[in-house]
């Protein structure tokens, strides 16, 4: 194992130095990679929160979470197409709210159908059910909205770019980062300051004892799914705003990446998930240029998903507790 580790590190170093030596990208390029990485990273972070929170209370992965994310994007799509004329930030708020509500509702349904019935069993049944739910969601959306990509009606006030310290940064990316930060702060306050948050932490710590203290753990689990789903829904809307296209199968890769981010930060660890998401986003946007092009690999951006998945596998192998450690290191099944 040590040999593999050393080999990996050497490989990364060689790739980095050679890519930098090639000097293929200008400083401007690197900055825009960075901002894009932050944008992507904040979306990953929002998705990964759902994984991490559900894992915290259930010790299980919500396999359908990627599709909960996708459902949020499509829920808001209905509004974006029907909505009243006029352009204002209110529309953005409405989109986010509808996306969050759709995803929260879907997450609750997933919990009810796939996780609640198997609460006391430790086998693979919930996981297989969740895989089923994930397919139902994908093909339902595909049936409802068609096979091609759809896009929100253009929001003019999100167009254009802002100049920060001499570099042009697309405005929409700044908005995405800002919304994600606000959502994460709100979530952090919810978990750390409110009564509900305390209940969640108690259930995550020890469900039986929490139940003995009078906490309705079933309800807390449902709410946890809903809150995690709402975050994914917001992420879905933000994704649609940045990439300007949504399709029924986009939840798949985003789901794996969100999970990768959650594992990167230590699953069950909420601040860790946020950091993990940002790191993954940056890694994905810098990685192909900084690492792969050094090896003379043609069109490295085709492989950017492979980087994210590879990162996931490598972390799972060498440091399954993540960079910041699981919040609950004990009681791993």
């Amino acid at each position, binding site marked *: 194992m040590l040999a593999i580790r050393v080999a990996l590190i050497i490989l990364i170093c060689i790739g980095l130095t050679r890519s930098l030596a090639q000097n293929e990208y200008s400083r401007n390029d690197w900055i825009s990679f960075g901002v894009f990485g932050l944008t992507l990273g904040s979306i990953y972070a929002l998705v990964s929160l759902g994984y991490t929170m559900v894992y915290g209370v259930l010790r299980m992965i919500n396999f359908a979470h990627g599709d909960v994310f996708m459902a949020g994007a499509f829920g808001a799509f209905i509004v974006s197409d029907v909505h009243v004329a006029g352009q204002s930030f209110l529309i953005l708020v409405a989109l986010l709210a509808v996306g969050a509500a759709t995803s929260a509702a879907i997450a609750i349904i997933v919990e009810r159908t796939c996780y609640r019935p198997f609460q006391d069993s430790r086998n693979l049944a919930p996981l297989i059910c969740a*895989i089923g739910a994930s397919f139902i969601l994908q093909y339902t959306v595909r049936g409802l*909205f068609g096979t091609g990509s759809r896009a929100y009606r253009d929001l003019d006030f999100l167009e254009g770019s802002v100049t920060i310290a001499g570099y042009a940064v697309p405005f929409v990316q700044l908005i995405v980062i800002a919304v994600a930060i606000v959502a994460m702060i709100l979530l952090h306050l919810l978990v750390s300051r409110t009564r509900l948050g305390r209940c969640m932490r108690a259930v995550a710590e020890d469900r039986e004892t929490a139940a003995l203290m009078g906490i309705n753990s079933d309800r807390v689990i449902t709410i946890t799914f809903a809150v995690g789903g709402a975050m994914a829904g917001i992420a879905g809307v933000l994704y649609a705003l940045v990439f300007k296209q949504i399709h029924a199968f986009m939840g798949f890769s985003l789901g794996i990446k969100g999970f990768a981010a959650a594992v990167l930060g230590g699953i069950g660890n909420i601040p860790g998930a946020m950091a993990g998401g940002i790191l993954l986003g940056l890694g994905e946007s810098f990685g192909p240029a900084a690492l792969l092009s050094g090896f003379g690999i043609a069109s490295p951006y085709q492989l950017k998903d492979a980087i994210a998945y590879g990162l996931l596998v490598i972390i*799972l192998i060498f440091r399954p507790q993540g960079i910041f450690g699981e919040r609950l290191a004990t009681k791993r099944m």
Partner: protein
Amino acid sequence: MPYPLINPTLKTIGMAAAVSGLLAVYIVAVGIYPAFAARQILPPSLTLGYLMLAGVWFYTGWTYARSGSWLNGGIGAGTTGVVSGAVYVSVLELAKTENIQGIFVSLSAPTINSAFFGLSGVTAFIVIPLCTGVLSLAGFLIANTPSRVRSCFLSAFVGILLAALLRDLWTALFSNLTGTRRWASWIYAAGGLTWIGAAVAALAGVAFQFARSRRMDNGGRGGDIGAVVVFVLIAIVIPYFTNAFVAQVMLLVGLYALMGMGLNLELGLAGLLDLGFVAFFAIGAYAMALLSADAPIAIARLTFWEALPIATICAALGGFVFGLPVLRVRGDYLALATLGLGEIVRILVVSDFMASTLGGAQGIVAVPRPSLGDTPMTSQLSMYYLTLALSALVAIAGYRLRHSPIGRAWMAARDDEDAAATLGVDLVKSKLKAYVLGAAFAGIAGALFASTLGSVFPQSFKLDVSINVLALLVIGGLGSLPGVFVGSLILIGMPEFLREFGEFRYLFYGVLLILVMRLRPSGLWPSSLKARGEI
């Protein structure tokens, strides 16, 4: 739907009506209804689409079966049906007036018109709820008949459905068997069944049900062996007496059964959920193509028989490489880690980076068929028999493995890792063996696939394959060998005849996965140990 209350209250009726009404709307809006409406069951009016919608309300009434008295249940079922029909009509009417057809692609005006049985306006609002009420009441009444009558009714229904949906299979069979050539024209009219055909199919269903309940009454002893023999005979005979299309479908079924047996070792016996299973299938196929293809990209020109063992070994090696690090990861982590690995393989194969060695998106063509002696096996039928023979070999191997010490070690580790480790099972080693053997089975399937198709393309190795294999395994019964074949027949074979399912195949898979896990976790053909309650 959990509404078996003693006295259906207004609230339960409202809930049930809302759920079933919206379910019917869902069937229309998601596009299942329009696709199914194209398939005739009993021309001119009864289509699969109507049957599907009718099924919703029929089942709604069925759920009232245990609500105490006939009067209570009947009133509950009838009212629910009427309200639910009203919900259905009003929501779809709303979809018609509000111009939201740009959003929901399936809700076109002709579709809604057909979903309203051609009625419109006030007539639709009166007639449809009445019909749904009657359907729901019928469901309730039939649910309350004695169990023999009920099962006769259901099997007659299934008989008609199978006769109508598997039309291609039956007509091919009739036209190839001597003496039955004219049956097809009696049973099938243009597009669907004739009334005579429906009656015959219903009778056949009932007869089958009688035979089955006879056997059950006799204790069902020795039934497993008998059923296996019947299955094997059918598998050998049917493709011979039908056409190349059926052989082709059965070939696919066989390939998936091969993979299913591989995943069965990993998931069914060792409890390792592997969603990157397609990678091994791909390795087998690409190894076969690179070793034997008549193309500049190939590295050798071996025959099929020389390349098959090498391809199998390549896949097994792939299993080893993937397994070595990943198996230290536990349960649900493993699912996502393997998912990631499978995707990495696919991305690499499609990328320009590997295009010079693997052919990129263009794939590799001109993979030869195997030959027996000097005659190449050009027909689908011969390839099918080859697949069948190989899967029989693999099935025997799987059976032996299961009852060997390593098989017992797998099952022990699956049921309780700590206990198994305490009893001296080397967890990593035994899991790795499951992984390697499972991968080898998938490699055989991949090699056969490449040779049958004569080419390999990266598009053939998507995640869908892994999900298909997982689904057929779960639905057949985890850990059960005959279950693999039954699952493969139902999930891979049937949809080929039901072209309407095409788009919605995975939707139904999803529903089936959840239903089987919740209602019948041991699958359609449980493994014998499970059936005897030993697991």
